[in-house]
């Protein structure tokens, strides 16, 4: 008998007369000790389904209208809240995509673990605190007695997710629902967390539902896969069978758009220097104040001695994990971040020497595309107004020609002209990012800096945006600086890769070469940690990074 069984579950949204079917007759089973991958893009209903299992639908307007959920043979679909409380945390634990926002910032980690122990096992406070230390050790904390007394913000992202796992597993539940647990993490950290989950399954006989949009993650960890779309399970089956012979066209499309698949070689010939580089960076150092007393200010070096030359028309990917200094480097290059020492020059104008003149040139010749496409657009302006504003300020196009130019820009990024009259709120993530790219193009730039601009998008949308960049670069002769933590995307888009770690460039070379024969252990580890869609190609051991756990602490002490 399966541990958890979902039968013909229907969830509807009702608001007055409006009614929508969000989950449509979903049936799923989870056996003891099994890891089930639930795959789908945002809005497919995978998170909602799991919330329904927990009895935690996010709004009163949502309700289970049909079907049932049973846990070890007992129907828990319509249990009274009081009985549901004994199931949450005790029988089913849950971890979330963003540990930073799901951990209480003003409560010590140990106390958040102890809370569940007091609630479900009736432990006295002191005993629960001691138990919390033991649990932290089990999920890979190195100094749990001290770390139990720390707060979420004092940990790195990976350690926060481990803490979240510790909180969820405190009362030894039978099932763990993991909702995109590694989406916000760097690849090497992701590999560590996935391994942790697999270990917990072995040691505790834990059953796991792993929600993700990344088929690579599923291929590496799960036993079975269920693919969701528009509130339905479109395909379900054993991992190898499903990946090798997908039946449903949507599953086939998902697999085809997975960036880890070597369906195309690394692009382009390596750049041949033919003239003066567009960007010259010499021994650049950028540091931030990081506390300390007024007479002994500490500084944190975000960029530490970087020298780089980027030629006209090059597409360069800057890769590195969070905190490696890649975004700071880009912001400094655009004059958005003061230089601590060293030199930055844009097309011969040295930013550090003639700041005003270089800035004026940068504003006219360089543009940036941001990570969060929605928040980077002014919510009060329509897309057309946003574009027109840039055109007016730049003054490169005569006023009368602005509306026509706006249409041209929309055509370029593949948005219907009707979008000119719409505001960001009514656009999807991918459409917002297209608008963001159109805004960058409105400058008529020679250089575009794209900072993690596809990280927040679904895979199929990611693939479309990357394709858009590829056409734009080819058609307009743009120089593109593409910052990403996802190596697979960089490989398919950029002819040259620069790998950064701890503020330094550790590898720089043509993509094909770097990916085939990385000369430095760090890029090698990064490449190995990408979860491959091929289940037989195991997740390589992620290089242990002594700084990852104490990164934040180092800043504080």
């Amino acid at each position: 008998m399966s541990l958890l069984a979902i039968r013909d579950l229907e969830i509807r949204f009702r608001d007055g007369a409006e009614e929508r079917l969000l989950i449509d007759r979903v049936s799923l089973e989870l056996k003891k000790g099994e890891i089930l991958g639930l795959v789908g893009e945002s809005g497919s209903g995978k998170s909602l389904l799991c919330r329904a299992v927990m009895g935690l639908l996010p709004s009163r307007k949502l309700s289970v209208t049909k079907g049932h959920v049973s846990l070890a043979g007992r129907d828990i679909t319509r249990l009274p809240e009081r009985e549901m409380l004994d199931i949450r945390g005790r029988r089913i634990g849950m971890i979330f995509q963003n540990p930073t926002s799901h951990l209480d910032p003003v409560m010590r980690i140990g106390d958040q673990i102890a809370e569940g122990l007091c609630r479900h096992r009736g432990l006295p406070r002191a005993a629960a605190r001691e138990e919390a230390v033991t649990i932290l050790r089990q999920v890979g904390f190195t100094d749990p007695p001290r770390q139990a007394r720390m707060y979420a913000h004092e940990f790195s992202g990976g350690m926060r997710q481990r803490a979240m796992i510790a909180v969820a597993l405190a009362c030894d539940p039978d099932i763990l629902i993991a909702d995109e647990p590694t989406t916000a993490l760097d690849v090497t950290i992701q590999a560590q967390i996935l391994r942790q989950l697999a270990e917990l399954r072995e040691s505790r006989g834990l059953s796991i539902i792993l929600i993700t949009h990344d088929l690579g993650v599923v291929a590496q960890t799960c036993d079975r896969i269920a693919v969701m779309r528009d509130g339905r399970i479109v395909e379900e089956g054993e991992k190898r069978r499903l990946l090798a012979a997908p039946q449903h066209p949507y599953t086939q499309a998902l697999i085809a758009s997975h960036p880890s698949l070597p369906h195309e070689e690394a692009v382009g010939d390596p750049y041949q220097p033919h003239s003066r580089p567009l960007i010259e960076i010499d021994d650049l150092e950028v540091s931030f104040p990081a506390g300390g007393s007024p007479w002994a200010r500490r500084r944190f070096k975000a960029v530490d001695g970087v020298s780089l030359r980027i030629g006209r028309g090059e597409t360069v990917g800057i890769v590195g994990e969070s905190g490696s200094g890649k975004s700071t480097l880009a912001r400094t290059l655009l004059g958005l971040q003061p230089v601590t020492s060293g030199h930055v020059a844009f097309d011969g104008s040295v930013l550090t020497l003639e700041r005003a003149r270089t800035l004026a040139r940068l504003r006219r010749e360089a543009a940036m595309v941001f990570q969060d496409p929605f928040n980077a657009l002014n919510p009060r302006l329509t897309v057309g107004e946003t574009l027109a504003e840039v055109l007016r300020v730049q003054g490169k196009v005569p006023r009368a020609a602005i509306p026509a130019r706006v249409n041209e820009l929309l055509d370029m990024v593949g948005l219907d002209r009707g979008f000119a009259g719409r505001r960001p709120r009514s656009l999807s993530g991918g459409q917002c990012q297209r608008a963001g790219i159109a805004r960058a193009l409105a400058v008529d730039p020679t250089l575009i800096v794209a900072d993690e601009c596809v990280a927040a998008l679904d895979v199929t949308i990611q693939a479309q945006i990357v394709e858009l960049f590829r056409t734009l670069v080819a058609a307009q002769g743009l120089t593109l600086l593409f910052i990403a933590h996802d190596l697979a995307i960089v490989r398919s888009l950029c002819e040259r890769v620069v790998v950064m770690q701890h503020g330094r460039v550790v590898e720089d070379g043509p993509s094909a070469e770097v990916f085939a024969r990385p000369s430095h252990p760090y890029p090698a580890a990064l490449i190995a940690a990408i979860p491959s869609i091929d289940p037989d190609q195991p997740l390589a051991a992620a290089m242990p990074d002594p700084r990852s756990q104490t990164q934040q602490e180092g800043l504080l002490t």
Partner: protein
Amino acid sequence: MHRYRFVLFRPLQFLPVLFGISVITFVLVRLIPGDPARILLGTRATPTALARIRAQYGLDEPMWAQYLYFLKNLASGEMGRSTLYKIDVLPLIATRIEPTLALVTMGVLLSLAIAVPFAAISARRQGRAADQAVRVVSTLGIGFPPFWLGLVLILLFSVTLGWLPVSGYGETLGEKISHLILPGLTVALSLSAVLTRSLRAGMIAGIHSDVATAARARGLSENAVFWRHVVPNALVPTVNLLAVNIGWLIGGTVGVESVFALPGMGQLLVRGIFSRDYMVVQGVAMTFAVATVLVNFLADIVTVALDPRVKL
């Protein structure tokens, strides 16, 4: 304990602030039309008498020289001599500071006692009758001027019901407290309206936050989620709002003190202004400024204690 290191250094930053305030109040007071000597002696005073008073209080010297005297006095712990009361300003303020301090404290405590439960009721029943009622009441609280509220309270509790004294301050602690309840409530009714709104907004955000979802997912009851996770997080921004309002309150006690005839700083300030008693006005203004700076300092300490992420 490095997070609390600012407690040692922050007071150094007070010095320039206080210096600036002293210059501004000094100049502003002297811009008020009217001659203090003439107000003191009346319209029929002789020119020689006027000149003698002016010389006695240094009013015949240029303004910068007067300011230097003022600074010199301040350095030796004095604030000059009141032309009206004929005694030193500092001991005068010392006798008046207690009722004002007690009034503000009472007002803040009562307003918290009102705001926290009201906000909690309102946030947890968002959109329902109780929530609507709290919102209407707090809008009214902001709308009614304190002096009018004070009069209504006197009519109700002192004149009609006879439960509490009409005005004055009293001698013993018990008397003082019973005299402070109505003025404290007057202050609290408008202050709690502002606090309730901020707390309610913070609590509603908290109830729908990821932190609360995660807490529910580990089996905590709705009550535990609210009091252990939602409230502590909602208090942080409210502390700063409270600090800003206390600063405003300290200067704003003038009206409430007049209505309830409390012998506090506000009353002293009003009389000082009418009699062009420069030294008293300056002294009171400086005291208000110091109090406001201290309250904000205190709020910083509380914020750091409540939120481990804050570093100052």
